[in-house]
């Protein structure tokens, strides 16, 4: 190898290194910057605000799957969640399941009859300490500082599915194929997804931004309550204060924000 060629290669190497280090520095410098960008984001006047959004589900008010159906239906409809026949490719944000599936390890050998037959609504818990956010290699899933919602950027997600492995609640779905042909009626107000990205419940952040409660809460006839976990006067705190509530897999320390009255 003659010396000029070597020189060019060296220069190339050094410039490549310089190019790659910048984003790394940025990542470590991000913490200070975050506050500024947050302030720059303008909230609408009507938007609902909270330190940490939370949900209380009064499971006593649901007797059968049929009672849950309208809730899941409205959610999946407004969020353009496709209906896929193949169970492996299924996408769901909110659905009903048995007590022993929602709370494995908490199901006694003999259970109260009504609990055994009652459907339990499950969805993303918007954990205060979310393992999925820890796992994501691109920050495509992140916890919003403003209101604690565990959010997703569908355009940044690389589809590695690390978040799905990290979530102890099975709350996340992956688009194993193009979902668009399987959306009944597309809601133009909300983005559709493309194949190869992960998705999940977003606590209806788009509705909160315009002063509306999450769609499932609205459709629940009072069975679901929604509010700020850190506001002692909020409806969720009132319910938690006056009822015995449980959360899914509390021992894992993820601090789920969905509480269940059983």
């Amino acid at each position, binding site marked *: 190898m003659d010396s000029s060629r070597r020189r060019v290669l060296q220069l190339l190497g050094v410039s490549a290194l310089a190019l790659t280090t910048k984003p*790394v520095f940025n990542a470590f410098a991000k913490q200070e910057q975050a506050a500024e960008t947050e302030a720059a984001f303008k909230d609408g006047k009507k938007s609902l605000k909270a330190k940490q959004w939370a949900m209380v589900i009064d499971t006593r008010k649901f007797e059968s799957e049929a009672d849950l159906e309208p809730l899941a239906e409205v959610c999946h409809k407004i969020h353009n969640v496709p209906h896929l026949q193949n169970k492996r490719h299924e996408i769901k944000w909110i659905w009903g399941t048995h007590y022993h599936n929602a709370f494995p390890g908490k199901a006694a050998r003999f259970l109260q009859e009504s609990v055994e037959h009652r459907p339990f609504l499950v969805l993303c818990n918007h954990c205060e300490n979310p393992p999925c956010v820890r796992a994501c*290699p*691109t920050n495509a899933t992140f916890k919003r500082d403003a209101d604690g919602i565990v959010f997703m950027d569908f355009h940044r*997600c*690389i589809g590695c*599915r690390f978040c799905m492995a990290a979530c*102890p609640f*099975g709350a996340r779905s992956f688009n*194993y194929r193009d979902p668009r042909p399987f959306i009944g009626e597309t809601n133009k107000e909300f983005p559709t997804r493309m194949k*190869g990205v992960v998705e999940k419940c977003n606590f209806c952040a788009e509705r909160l931004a315009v002063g509306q409660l999450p769609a499932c809460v609205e459709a629940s006839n009072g069975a679901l309550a929604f509010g700020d976990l850190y506001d002692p006067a909020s409806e969720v705190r009132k319910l938690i204060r006056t009822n015995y509530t449980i959360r899914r897999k509390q021992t894992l320390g993820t601090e789920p924000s969905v509480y269940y009255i059983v």
Partner: protein
Amino acid sequence: MLELALKGGKKYYGWMTFLMVIVGIGFLFYLRQLDFGLGITGLSRDVSWGFYIANFTFLVGVAAGGVMVVLPYYLHDYKAFGKVTILGEFLAISSVLMCVTFILVDLGQPMRIMNVFLYPTPGSVLFWDTIVLNGYLFLNIIIGWNVLEAERNGVHYQKWLKPLIYISIPWAVSIHTVTAYLYCGLPGRGFWMTAILAPRFLASAFAAGPALLILCCLIIRRVSNFDPGREQIQSLAKIVAYAICINVFFFVCEVFVVFYSQIPEHMDHIKYLFVGLHGHGAYVPWMWASMILMLVGIILTVNPITRKNEGVLAVACVAIFLGTWIDKGLGMIAGGFTPSPLHEINEYIPSLPEIGIALGVWAMGFLVMTALFKIAVSVKEEVRG
């Protein structure tokens, strides 16, 4: 030196063509996957990682296993391994290439891969895995290439390589440790949540990597004028023997903890793999085959009579390679996802296109490995005249 990979006999070109055909078939399947999405695999909402990630995990081990010839030579001045270190380094290069490719084919949006570097996330283990894997790849390319070139020119390798060589040793350990951390730090996945996962990965790596290396040495001796040496092969065999024993011992530790404590979350996965759970047991014959293969490997490599017979040793190495592959490349990932967090069982069976793509990646790795070994062997033949 690259030109050496182009000069070969009919058998060499035949083998390379064969590999290229498999790469081509795999690539066609991959085009289909790019078009349709990962739905052409057997993956599901519950088992969201499968064959690709499992093979990735296994191959990280094979790559790390290369250090078993580098370490004794450079750290303990075990001269005999000087002849084969280059093979270890080149094995590492081709294995890491396969690893990176397996990650790439597993991504739902592969064209967004640069997001990992554009939005670096130091809290994510996957981010670190990308760093250590690529680092290990470059370390081995730089070290292997320069040392071989120096050997060809009859000079001592450059001084600045020495620190890189020393760094590459703990780096090899790091790649498999970080890969284990991908799994063992996840809450709610009882099968992986064990501090012994990284050590276990390393033990099986140091068995599988050198086992493959022994097989390569035996083949190289047959097809070229370069003899990696009997002593070298025997020393490698002893390393394999210890590593496979430790691997099985670690597994026994795992089984004891899980079944003596009887915590269902941890028990259910191992039950699913070895005896079946709620009527689902697709992996049962495989897992037992893995255990038997590893035990056969132990018997044949620990016993000096069988170990010293190179024909028997070859059989042992195949058994160990297959046994550890089933353990890690088949059971480790699917087993961790079944049963699901909601305690449902949706069995994962890799689909035909998925296996095709995986075979394509393996063939690509072996293609690179053959070319690299061809270069190394040609240099060795040249030097020895």
